[in-house]
């Protein structure tokens, strides 16, 4: 009897210790998490604070955000960097790219998910293969092809919206196909068959029944394409040379080259560039996260 009691006491003591340990561990890991979050968002806070400071403060390191500087910086960046023009170009190019790449990827993604055709494996591998090619390898040939098209066919390709839009669309089609393929594959075949029994052709079943069901996946792919196009620098840098068609990253890079230490304006511009994508992302993050993770978790 006595030994029994001793054992239960020991066990409960041990158990308490274990629970306490677990609690302490939990607090510790949450504290570490919030410290990490603090470090993570600090650069962004610093970007915004810097955008409210004046040039001397930024260069000497005595940064004091002031209302006056906010007005000056966020006004001057539009005139000094010619930001409005770049912003317009980026919007036109990225929106068109998103629409074109998405339309093409939706069709191919559906075909890849639903049909077992001769060459479907090859097509799947080729789409993944495009991701392995270093951009720089086809950048120069592409540039020269664009020049040749201009010489032989008389269609201007370099320094035009459509040249960049075609390039970007082709860039982001392959990965979008993979995002969408996963989504289409997860829609039960029965739904499509039911629609066909009701008299739809396969194509109209696709348009009327499957597409609406795949909207989360389509949104996910659209966000992917837009964010990637918003971020592209190398090709835009080479394929455009006049401000009429240059995008924001090119514009900012040119500005950095010309006015090295105008961090006041650059940080204001950085803030303004980040806001649209941040808004898009956080409004639609539910779709995007489910779209990206669906493919990953299912393999």
């Amino acid at each position, binding site marked *: 009897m006595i030994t029994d009691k001793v054992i239960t006491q020991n066990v409960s003591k041990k158990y308490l210790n274990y629970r306490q340990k677990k609690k302490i561990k939990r607090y510790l890991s949450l504290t570490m998490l919030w410290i990490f979050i603090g470090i993570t968002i600090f650069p962004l806070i610093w970007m915004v604070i810097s955008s409210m400071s004046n040039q001397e403060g930024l260069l000497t*390191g005595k940064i004091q955000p002031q209302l006056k500087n906010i007005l000056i910086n966020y006004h001057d960046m539009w005139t000094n960097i010619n930001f409005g023009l770049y912003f317009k170009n980026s919007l036109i190019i990225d929106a068109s790219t998103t629409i074109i790449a998405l339309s093409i990827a939706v069709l191919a993604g559906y075909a890849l998910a639903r049909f077992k055709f001769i060459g479907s494996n090859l097509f799947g591998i080729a789409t993944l293969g495009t991701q392995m090619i270093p951009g*720089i390898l086809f950048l120069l040939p592409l540039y020269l092809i664009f020049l040749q098209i201009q010489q032989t066919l008389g269609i201007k390709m370099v320094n035009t919206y459509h040249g960049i839009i075609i390039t970007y669309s*082709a*860039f982001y089609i392959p990965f979008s196909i993979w995002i969408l393929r996963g989504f289409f594959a997860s829609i039960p075949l029965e739904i499509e068959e039911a629609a066909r029994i009701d008299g739809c052709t396969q194509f109209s079943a696709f348009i009327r029944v499957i597409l609406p069901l795949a909207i989360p996946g389509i949104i996910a792919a659209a966000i992917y394409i837009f964010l990637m196009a918003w971020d592209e620098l190398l090709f835009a840098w080479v394929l455009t040379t006049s401000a009429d068609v240059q995008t924001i990253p090119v514009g900012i890079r040119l500005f950095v080259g010309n006015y090295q230490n105008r961090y006041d304006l650059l940080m204001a511009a950085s803030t303004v560039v980040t806001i649209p994508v941040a808004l898009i992302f956080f409004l639609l*993050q539910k779709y995007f996260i489910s779209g990206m993770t669906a493919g990953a978790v299912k393999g």
Partner: protein
Amino acid sequence: MDYLKQNFKKNKLAYILILPAIVAMLMIHFIPMAEGLYISLLKLNQYTLLKFLHAPFIGLENFYTILFDPSSTLRIGFMDAVRNTIIYTIATNLSVLIIGLWLAHVLKQQFIGRGIARTLLLLPWVVPSYVVGLLWGFMWRQDSGIINKILVDYLHILPNKPFWLIGPNVIIAIIIPTIWRSFPMTMIMLLAALQTISDDYYEAAEIDGATGWQKLIYVTLPFLKPVIGTLILFGMIGSIYSYNIVAMMFGNGAGYPGDWGDLVMTNISRNSFNMWQFGTGAAASVMLMIGVLALTGIWYKVFKDSLTMQ
């Protein structure tokens, strides 16, 4: 033959549906790539640029120049860039995986402010990478940069302010922003995968007396293997082909961080477009691609079992 015909007829719609994608990929990816492969065998520089594919054919000389020619300045720079890219790729991907795994593990629990924590942690991922380069370049500045101020003036961790944008520290100055930008995506993917693991497995492991580390190694990691595989593949390709951060951080947009931080992509693009060495540039790109394909082959061997396509 009949089977082929039947299959083709049955799947006519599929072929029509993939046609636009094929045309786009041929036009922008594969035909220019084939030309790029051919250019790597040509003496294509500023003098012969206008001849394009009719430039003098020199066989493998470009490859020889990059790999073995001791008199070539390209060779030294390229080898440095290869070394830096290897360090950069391993360091960023390993750190991102560890940080992502840790964060996913913490975020899996219920706690107050979990939603806010997740959203705040996703923030770096929406920042365009050229802004990442610009912003961190600004913060790394030796004299007035905030990082040195925090490390030296406020926390006294270091005795005097190091140079981050010149010399051997450059590689750190590009690795940390890359980790900062990439961990959110890894975290969110791992979190989604972690949530599919049933608690039963952990309880069973606990009954068997497994420690935290044992649970990680014998329960969590095997379940996560497919996701980690995907993340490693895309992370690897992403960092080997990474350009924007380095291009924006150094040399006021010229993108030359010196021998200690130059990456293969910035090296090749500088040699190709600033110094008009297109033949050698193409040869370097070809070698880069072969390297990536070889790594993908190794990757496939390692993760083959956990890939469940379709």
